[in-house]
């Protein structure tokens, strides 16, 4: 399981604490490594701090820095250029261009696990 390089982390960006922590619990219970951020700004800091993020799960409607601005900023500074970004949102507006996938809320456990399994190995 843990031969060679360890599995990459999932960065969950979600302002709603219950949902964020529940996603963390679910993913960790299924063997994924998780870091979390409460908004786009915190997510940028997390990307700068953690060098082994393999997937960003991004909410769109957040205070301080929303998902659209986060994607724009990430592309501008060229952070994590190969890290897939999966948007999970119920925002009626268009998701930012250049994201890898959009998961319409409400997300359930099966769909969450399926999409994370696609991009990141369980550690």
């Amino acid at each position: 399981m843990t031969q060679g390089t360890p599995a990459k982390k999932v960065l969950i960006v979600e302002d709603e604490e219950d949902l964020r922590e529940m996603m963390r619990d679910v993913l960790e219970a299924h063997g994924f490594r998780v870091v979390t951020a409460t908004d786009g700004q915190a997510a940028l800091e997390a990307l700068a701090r953690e060098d082994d993020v393999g997937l960003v799960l991004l909410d769109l409607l957040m205070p301080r820095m929303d998902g659209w601005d986060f994607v724009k900023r990430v592309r501008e500074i060229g952070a994590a250029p190969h890290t897939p970004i999966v948007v999970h949102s119920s925002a009626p507006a268009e998701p930012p261009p250049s994201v890898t996938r959009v998961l319409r809320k409400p997300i359930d456990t099966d769909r969450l696990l399926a999409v994370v399994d696609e991009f990141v190995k369980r550690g």
Partner: protein
Amino acid sequence: MRTASEENERRAAEEEARRFRLLVESVRDYGIFMLTPTGHVSTWNQGAARLKGYTANEIIGRHFSVFYPAEDVAAQKTERELEGATRDGRFEDEGWRIRKDGTRFWANVVITALRNADGELIGFGKVTRDLTERKQTEERLRALAAETAALAEKARLQEFHERFIGILGHDLRNPLAALDMGVALLKRQLGADASRARVLDRMASSARRMSRMIEQILDLTRTRVVGGFEMVPGPVDLRALLAAVVDEVQIANPTAALHLIGTETLGKWDRDRLEQVFSNLVSNAVHYGAAGTPVTVTLRPERDAVSVDVHNHNAGAPIPDAIQAAVFDAYRRGTRDSRSATTAGLGHGLHISREIARAHGGDIVLHSNAGGTTFSVRLPRAAGAGSA
């Protein structure tokens, strides 16, 4: 005996009075005339003739109440105006007046008491202006202001509804998602404890049901308030979409017999919305059909359109003709309001499905007879269909 200079003064004064009378008589934009102390017309000018439609011959000697609407005369308005002018020297009023031909005009009226050197009342001067145009402009402006206010109110309401949708869509769904995940996680950790797992299943199905109700309220609000669904059409193979829907319903209803008939059928539609439509129709067919009988989904491609029939065998009597159209109405459901986990929702599913079909330029119709019940969805293939 007058002196010569007195005679000259008198002539000059007479001449001035004549010229002044000429001036007054020739004024066309104002009705200027005199009333006797009792209110009878004693002089008339061109303006008055033009404004009120009477010639001097017709009106001189008549009481000025002929210029007033009957209700004003009955209310003794004319008397009060003369009393006011007598008491204060001047009386001003704006109101409706009547022309000879019976039409109304909006007038500004000034009545001035005229007194001789001894202070004795010898009559009244009356100046009348036609302000109908100004009045109409004012009314138009008022109507415009009211219209603007109504539009602003409508915009405010629209904004409120959109915010309401935002709250439903985002703020209510997130806690439900957390709940749903928590239940799934607990169930996994619980292992083989069947009685507790049942409790968790109930919790999960409640959360899902609530989630579906929120979806329906959202969709209903979109159709009713915000001006319909926004379609995001893209290339879709309807056969593949139906297969996925049938699989999903099959997983949720393992004992159901579901058949899909049809081949690859390409078009340009909103994939998510069509999934919603067929998921609703196929689930309904399973839940309301006779137990143990098959549900058949038949895809019929035509040149510029496709139709999909979702057919089941009736569990009881066919849906009566009289209520076949009504099943698509919001706020009703064909059967008793049982709220089991499988028939979750608010009963707006068919209404929403038909709205989605219509937003695609298509429709859904229902046929129900002894042979069973069929919902037929007809969708035009958008331009560029088949080239995808």
